[in-house]
């Protein structure tokens, strides 16, 4: 006995209930249940169930038409007019289209899957591209007259370290009337909430004029006043929309309330518009604080009014608004004029000689990765376009195959008097239904791909994808792409198969057509060409990732862990930080499996890098200073990195005086031994003795060769508020991470710590872009291979079926099996060879766009190209084999008797 309670099958009863008009639902359902019950008593449950199912299926079209309003109440079915008639025809044709689709489940499913993958990939691409590249920062007024100003060497257009406050003021005064300049310093502060770990918020320290210059209107409150940029001014803050909602529960009276960031209370004076996240795209800023309170709270010894801190980095960049009717180029000229004037005022300043002002567009990605983002988006976009083309070709192919298979039915319909318009309408509706189905599945693909992308960083420069919003826009794009593809693909089929005159249709209806798919081979050739390009691109990226994983960094990267610490201004004065770090180093050193522990200012493989002038003693500061990477660190850090010592001895314990150079810098500064000689690291003439020279290591990026690098003591120079602890372990450091976190918490439970984990993770962050490209490329290439193989297989099978009779005749006339095999394979192989050759030529012309993303492999790498061609040939041969064998199995007697 079945465990189902008495009553009609539940699914079918539910289906019936949703089909019925709500006003009739209870009554009609009750009556059908009565009938079911009567049948069950008379014939048994099995018969009653099947009759009920049959009833629901029979009723469905009738009830659907009823629900769609096709049959106005009281009107006769033939009496509908106007909109009702069109609606009726659309409904009938939609139902017919749906039937046509379900009659070929395999082809339809394939089409939907191809559409879904292509539309989902395109939607994801548009989402990512929009997120990182396109469009300007929201809410910025007249982005066209906004500029970013960076100060750096002539070959460092995107440097972010030398834009000081005096420089900003000089610039604003000298070019007054032309521009208005604000300084911007992206920063992070932590928000401590009761009972939870500190949360990092990203924000910007800005000159008071920031909001005015950007022209961002605040929905609540105001921007900053000039006096709020002066040291000693009260702490004020403009919060982002998210902070307003999360920290203040969207309190409408938030103005004047207080928020504690990095231990200091800030008074809220404004709330930014919901989508405004700073000037950069993608922006992450969630708060803005004016100059003085911002730097003060970072424990920095910033003094904006000081006369001699032109060299002290304060702003990362300036943002300038061109005032009035300024011609392009005016700003650049004004900037150069300012620099020349400053150089006259400060003749001894090597900084001014070595740097220039660089002008960039005001909004969009930060200049530092504008080019790299453009390349990334371009490569991904190219792959997506190839995939779309491939999908289109494949869909056209499938649509043509469908049209061929149905040409007989269409001819019959046409001969019986169906109007061409109606047949075309049905074809278009079919494409729309398929497109819609593909688009719906495609939004699922979009969601999956975005989940995969979320949290990844593209390049080490800070484009994070964690704020990807799958709102209505990307879904709309996906649907539009899906529908457009389906319609485009259906178009040739509509034109060809539906251009039937009645007499021709009558003739065609008399015979079953199995036409030889001549044009289909051309489509297969195109598919193979596109696939070749994708396979080679994916191959190059895969080799790149392999090479990057094997690159020798020069440090024991797999036995190092790191964690970033940010002692707060609230809990630690500048003087208390050193004892804290020493205590932390000591505690971590005692953990099991730890060999060495040390702290550094800017962690290797992090985004922030510092380079300051250095020269050998006795040289000319203005001419001879070089700019190596600057690592301020404790002695333990050098021990943790375990760099081989070329010369001298590494400092130990309380290292404060003297510097360590890497071999590249030592060779740049000195001929012969460097240890014992002295270097100058600032214009004030202070000299530092070289204690040791260590071997070069790739500490900035695994992709770039080791740069000249100088290591100085963490305790020698301006106070530091954020540092990274490095731990070298006997074994891979994964299991150590929780112990490390506990040990640090043991010293200070409130100490904000970030990113504890193996150093390999930091390296991997830098390689995300290559991995994403390799991953996306492989996925696309695999998909392309499957599509191309399916296309080839289908076309050859069709060709063999179409020529069964001819094969029969050939066999009867004594054709050898080998000859027959050759005859079939010739068509497949020629499609592959022609397609792959075109693909190879195409690939040779496009792989150079990958060049900047390749590592250790040339864009025209012979092995990859040959490998790609072999993969295509192998897959093509496999796809051709079954149809060829089928031709061999043709029974000549059967073949001749057929028809």
């Amino acid at each position: 006995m079945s465990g189902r309670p008495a009553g009609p099958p539940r699914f079918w009863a539910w289906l019936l209930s949703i089909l019925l008009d709500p006003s009739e639902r209870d009554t009609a359902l009750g009556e059908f249940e009565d009938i079911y019950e009567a049948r069950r008593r008379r014939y048994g449950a099995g018969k009653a169930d099947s009759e009920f199912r049959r009833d629901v299926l029979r009723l469905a079209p009738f009830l659907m038409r009823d629900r769609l309003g096709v049959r106005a109440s009281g009107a006769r079915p033939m009496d509908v007019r106007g909109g009702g008639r069109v609606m009726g025809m659309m409904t009938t044709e939609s139902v017919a289209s749906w039937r046509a689709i379900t009659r070929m489940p395999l082809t339809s499913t394939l089409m939907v899957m191809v559409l879904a993958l292509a539309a989902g990939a395109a939607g994801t691409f548009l989402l990512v591209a929009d997120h990182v590249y396109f469009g300007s920062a929201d809410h910025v007024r007249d982005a066209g007259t906004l500029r970013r100003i960076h100060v750096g060497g002539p070959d460092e257009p995107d440097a972010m370290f030398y834009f000081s406050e005096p420089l900003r003021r000089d610039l604003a005064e000298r070019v007054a009337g032309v521009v208005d300049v604000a300084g911007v310093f992206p920063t992070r502060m932590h928000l401590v909430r009761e009972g939870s770990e500190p949360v990092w918020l990203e924000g910007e320290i800005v000159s008071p004029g920031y909001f005015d210059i950007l022209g961002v209107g605040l929905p609540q409150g105001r921007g900053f006043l000039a006096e709020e940029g002066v040291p000693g001014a009260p702490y004020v803050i403009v919060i982002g929309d998210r902070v307003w909602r999360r920290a203040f529960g969207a309190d409408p009276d938030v103005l004047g309330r207080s928020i504690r960031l990095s231990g200091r209370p800030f008074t809220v004076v404004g709330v930014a518009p919901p989508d405004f996240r700073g000037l950069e795209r993608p922006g992450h800023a969630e708060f803005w604080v004016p100059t003085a309170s911002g730097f003060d709270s970072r424990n920095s010894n910033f003094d904006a009014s000081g006369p001699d801190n032109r060299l002290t980095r304060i702003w990362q960049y300036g943002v300038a608004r061109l005032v009035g009717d300024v011609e392009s180029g005016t700003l650049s000229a004004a900037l150069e004029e300012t620099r020349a004037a400053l150089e006259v005022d400060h003749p001894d300043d090597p900084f001014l000689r070595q740097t220039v002002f660089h002008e960039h567009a005001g909004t969009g990605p930060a200049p530092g990765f504008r080019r790299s983002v453009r390349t990334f988006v371009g490569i991904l976009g190219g792959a997506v376009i190839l995939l779309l083309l491939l999908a289109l070709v494949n869909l056209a192919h499938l649509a043509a195959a469908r049209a061929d298979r149905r040409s007989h039915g269409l001819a019959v319909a046409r001969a019986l008097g169906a109007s061409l318009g109606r047949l075309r309408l049905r074809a278009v509706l079919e494409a729309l239904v398929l497109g819609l189905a593909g688009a719906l599945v495609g939004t699922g693909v979009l969601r999956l791909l975005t989940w995969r992308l979320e949290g990844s960083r593209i390049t080490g420069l800070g484009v994070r994808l964690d704020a990807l919003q799958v709102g209505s826009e990307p879904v709309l794009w996906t649907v539009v792409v899906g529908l457009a593809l389906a319609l485009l693909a259906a178009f040739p089929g509509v034109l060809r198969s539906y251009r039937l005159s009645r007499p021709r249709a009558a003739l065609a209806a008399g015979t079953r057509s199995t036409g030889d798919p001549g044009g289909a081979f051309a489509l297969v050739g195109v598919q193979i060409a596109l696939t070749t390009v994708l396979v080679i691109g994916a191959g190059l990226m895969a080799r790149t990732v392999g090479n990057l994983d094997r690159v020798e960094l020069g440090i024991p990267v797999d036995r190092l862990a790191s964690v970033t610490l940010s002692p707060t201004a609230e809990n630690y004065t500048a003087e208390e930080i050193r004892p804290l770090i020493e205590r932390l180093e000591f505690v971590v050193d005692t953990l099991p499996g730890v060999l060495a522990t040390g702290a550094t200012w800017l962690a290797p493989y992090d985004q922030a890098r510092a380079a300051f002038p250095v020269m050998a003693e006795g040289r000319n500061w203005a001419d001879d200073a070089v700019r190596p990477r600057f690592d301020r660190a404790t002695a333990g850090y050098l021990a943790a990195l375990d760099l081989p010592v070329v010369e001298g001895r590494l400092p130990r314990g309380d290292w404060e005086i003297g510097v360590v150079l890497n071999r590249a810098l030592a060779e740049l500064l000195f001929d012969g031994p460097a240890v014992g000689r002295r270097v100058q690291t600032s214009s004030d003439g202070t000299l530092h003795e070289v204690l040791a020279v260590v071997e070069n290591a790739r500490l900035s990026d695994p992709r770039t060769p080791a740069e000249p690098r100088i290591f100085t003591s963490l305790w020698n120079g301006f106070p530091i508020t954020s540092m990274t602890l490095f731990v070298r372990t006997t074994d891979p450091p994964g299991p150590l991470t929780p112990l490390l976190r506990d040990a640090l918490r043991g010293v200070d439970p409130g100490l904000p710590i970030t990113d504890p984990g193996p150093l390999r993770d930091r390296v991997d962050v830098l390689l995300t872009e290559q991995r994403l490209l390799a991953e996306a490329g492989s996925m696309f290439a695999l998909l392309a291979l499957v599509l191309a193989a399916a296309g080839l297989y289908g076309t050859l099978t069709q060709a063999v079926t179409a020529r069964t009779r001819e094969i029969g005749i050939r066999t009867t006339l004594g054709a050898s099996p080998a000859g027959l095999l050759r005859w079939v394979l010739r068509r497949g192989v020629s499609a592959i060879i022609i397609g792959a050759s075109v693909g190879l030529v195409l690939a040779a012309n496009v792989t150079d766009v990958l060049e900047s993303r390749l590592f250790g492999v040339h864009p025209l790498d012979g092995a990859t190209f040959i490998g790609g061609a072999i993969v295509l040939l192998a897959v093509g041969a496999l796809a051709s084999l079954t149809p060829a064998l089928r031709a061999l199995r043709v029974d000549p007697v059967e073949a001749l008797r057929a028809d």
Partner: protein
Amino acid sequence: MTKDILGEFEHHVLLAMIRLEPEAYSSPIVEEMEAHTDRIVAASSVYIALRRLEEQGLVRSEKRPPPSDPGARERRYFSVTEAGVELLRESRRRYVSLWRGLEPRLGVE
């Protein structure tokens, strides 16, 4: 506007309905038809036929609980309109006229 000819199935539905009046709703109509035709009658066909007949003004319907049990679930009761009765008569006349004289040949008494 009314039809001038009834299909066989509609003819059956109308006759079954008249037999059941005033207790004619879909479930007993189906049973009545099955009882007289000795085969399973699709309830969906009866449902659709009743709706169409109503649209054509040949039957009318009202929703109400059964007279025997005012608290029970509502049902849609059908009754034949004058136009329906007229069409039935007309259909019968055509059948009878066509049959006339054929009885002995077809072995019908």
